[in-house]
């Protein structure tokens, strides 16, 4: 449908429109929106008082306070602005493997879903692809739900390829960003834990509210297609390992991956970040609706 993933049914889109992104702190936007901003404005959310000054709008004088204190005070309200939402999609070679798991497709679907939630809430969305081949997405914000088609087209042109060193790549992206906001990082995180911790730490240092979305393939977790002596080749580094796969070995391998996921989750929670894991054998719509809280969304 209009180049959107097949999971984006009408019902699913309706459910996405009922969601909005929730942040743990207030960020200044670039225009009117539905998110409270640290700026003073005209929303119904009371912020503070200040002494009346000539020229102030009489409508904001707090007359009850004048009656008690015989002094004129002006009520200040918070501004409601749009939210700057950044979505980083890992398009390194590891996202394309195993091919049957369609990890990158799942990552794109998650990114589009998140982008649709933001766009339908009136927020600004910037989608950035890390590594990969094809035409790079422009580092510009898009607004308006109709722009989701444009984003879907851009992401469809990207193929997973090449290596990705997450921390330096994100450092480069962050340097180009002018304002803080909500960040989603969608990756399989098949890399050294130190690199992940360093990358996620940069969001904390940049006052970003980040959510790590790990995408793992169902076949990848099961290593089902590997049996007996196998030489596994790392898709990004080219490192080769000879292993002898058995049921016990597969169990150990799965345990190793899950241990890495648990460590990433623990690290994120410790730093006030959000984390969720999506495995591709799951139903996407079901996952997305159930993981609303973990993703940092609210109805």
């Amino acid at each position, binding site marked *: 449908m209009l180049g959107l993933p097949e999971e984006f049914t009408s019902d699913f889109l309706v459910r996405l429109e009922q969601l909005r992104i929730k942040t743990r702190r207030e960020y200044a936007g670039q225009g009117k929106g539905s998110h409270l901003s640290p700026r003073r404005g005209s929303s119904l959310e009371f912020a503070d008082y200040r002494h009346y000054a000539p020229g102030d709008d009489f409508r904001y004088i707090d007359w009850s306070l004048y009656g008690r204190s015989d002094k004129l005070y002006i009520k200040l309200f918070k501004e409601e602005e749009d939210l700057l939402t950044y979505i980083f999609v890992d398009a390194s070679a590891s996202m394309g493997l195993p091919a049957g798991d369609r990890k990158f497709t799942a990552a794109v679907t998650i990114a589009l879903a998140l982008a649709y939630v933001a766009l339908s809430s009136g927020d600004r969305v910037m989608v950035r692809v890390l590594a990969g081949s094809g035409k790079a997405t422009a580092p510009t914000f898009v607004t308006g739900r109709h722009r989701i088609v444009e984003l879907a087209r851009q992401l469809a042109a990207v193929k997973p390829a090449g290596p990705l060193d997450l921390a330096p790549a994100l450092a480069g992206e962050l340097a180009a960003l002018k304002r803080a906001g909500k960040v989603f990082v969608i990756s399989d995180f098949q890399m050294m834990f130190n690199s992940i911790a360093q990358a996620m730490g940069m969001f904390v240092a940049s006052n970003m509210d980040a959510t790590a979305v790990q995408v793992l393939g169902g076949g990848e977790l099961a290593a089902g297609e590997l049996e007996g002596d196998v030489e596994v080749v790392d898709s990004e580094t080219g490192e080769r390992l000879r*292993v*002898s796969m058995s049921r016990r070995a597969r169990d150990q*391998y799965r345990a*190793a991956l899950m241990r890495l996921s648990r460590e990433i989750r623990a690290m994120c929670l410790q730093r006030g970040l959000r984390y969720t894991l999506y495995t591709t054998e799951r139903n996407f719509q079901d996952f997305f609706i159930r993981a609303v809280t973990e993703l940092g969304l609210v109805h």
Partner: protein
Amino acid sequence: MPAIGFLYPGALAFFALVPLLLLAYLVRERPRSVMVSSVLGYRALRGLKAQRPWGWPRLDWLFLVELIILSLVVIAMAQPFVIHRHTPVAVMLDNSAAMQAGTPPGARLESAKAALQRAIPDGGDIAVTLWLTAPQPHQIAAGVSPWRARSAISKARTVDAAQSTISVARTLRDILSGHRFTQCFFATASPVSPPIPAELHVFKAGDPLSNYAIGSFAVGGAQFGSGALRARLTVANFSPQPQTLEVTISAEGKALTRAQTRLGAQEIGNIEFPTLAPSGVYRADLKPADAFALDNVAWATPAAGAQIQVLFVTPTPADAAGLSALPQLSVHTISPENYSPASAKADLLIFEYGMPKELPAANAMLIMPPGGDEVFGLRTVAGATTQITDWRTPDPLTDGVNFRLLALRQPESFAVHPWMQSVVNSNLGSIILEGKHEGHRYVVLGFNPFPYLGRRNLPMSVLTLNILSYLSGFGSEDSGHRTGEPFIVPAGVTQIVTPGGSKIRVEPGTPFSADAEQGIYELIGPGSQKRLRAVNLADLNQSNLENPAAIKLDIPASGAPPPDFSERRTFTPYLLAAILALAACEALFTYRRRRVYAQGLT
């Protein structure tokens, strides 16, 4: 290169496992290469099957280590051994005094050394055992390499002592009949009587030589009371022509007297010097000179030139009264209960009516000892009357004694003694016994000659003086001590200084065998009291270089096959140690690699 054998060669069939191992590697399904998103999770699997010791073979160095381990195990199962060819060789060098002969001096020894050094075969399996023949055959190196044997031979020196042909023959018999050696090389100046076994290779060192020699050289007094000394020499002419020999006696570097005698070919004669001026040490030199200088010189110390210390052990001290009147005799009287062997520091001991508890370490006279003792084993013979029936003559004890006038008071007789000879016999047994034991003279009397009455009882006095002279060494024809023959260290002597100046601590009563050097030995007692003792070659058999005594082997012919001296030395323990070490290395490396990969996950 030692040969290698296997105790169980059949076990080598297990070597088929080695190519099987290789085959298993070669024919196994090659691991297919699969591109994965990341090998991060697979690192935890390293060390499972492919990395375990004895796991599926991988062509890296661990596989080679396992291949080596398997090979070593198979070899160890076959129980390998090295056949160590062992060729024991016996070498005997004659280092007796006769080997000093030759022109230049010692040429015989040098030719013998050269012959042996040439004869010793070379090779890593040769083990040489080396003997010297004098003073007694003795081993100086056992199982050494040819190089060390040659070195030991080059360091061998002659001694001034003769070799015992009997002892040498016995040693050679032991060497040849014991099947302990493949060959025996013997270099000697003495001929070896045929038949000579095939294993024995004799190298004759030197040709027959004409030689003039001094045999014995003794200096002593004639009797108590005479200050003059007399000397007696035995000289020999071992040459094919008659020869006039001249002997010069000197003392303290000054010639005292000289005498000549003409001896026929192969003739032995005596030269006497009846009056010699008293001196501590005498040296005799023989002329003309010859190719064997050692036996042209002899040394002597007067046998009884000094004061003689007599310890008279008696319950009746009055019996010793007359002895003190004799010149050169110093008598000390003690009661039997005060006697102890350790305190008996005297040249001559007299036991009256008693018996020491052990054999005295000095010349001794026993007067009417109690019979049935355990020290001498004397047995008295009871009888009503005892009469002298006969006596030994000529004999230094009976010389000049008128036995018809000899009146004995209550004599007793002794039965036949195991090692003492009867000098005067009675109708019941022996009245006077004489014997030598461990270098000491003992006389046993069945009557009491004391007190010494001098001219008032001349027959008894003559007999008493004869006995005292004999026990004191007077009138002895003994040529003194010979090189290489051990002598008992006299009582009180704690140190002996050899002619070469070596000082040797000694124990009284023990044999002293370091006397292979000709010359004067100083026997030093307490308070630096010094006694001199002359030690000479005094062996005319050794000096007879024209017809030396032959060595008779008398080895019975043996039909036994030559013994196999090869030795099997297993080295399985070394293989097992190598297997364990390699296995430990592999296990350690695998463990470390697993740890590195496991740490890499985080």
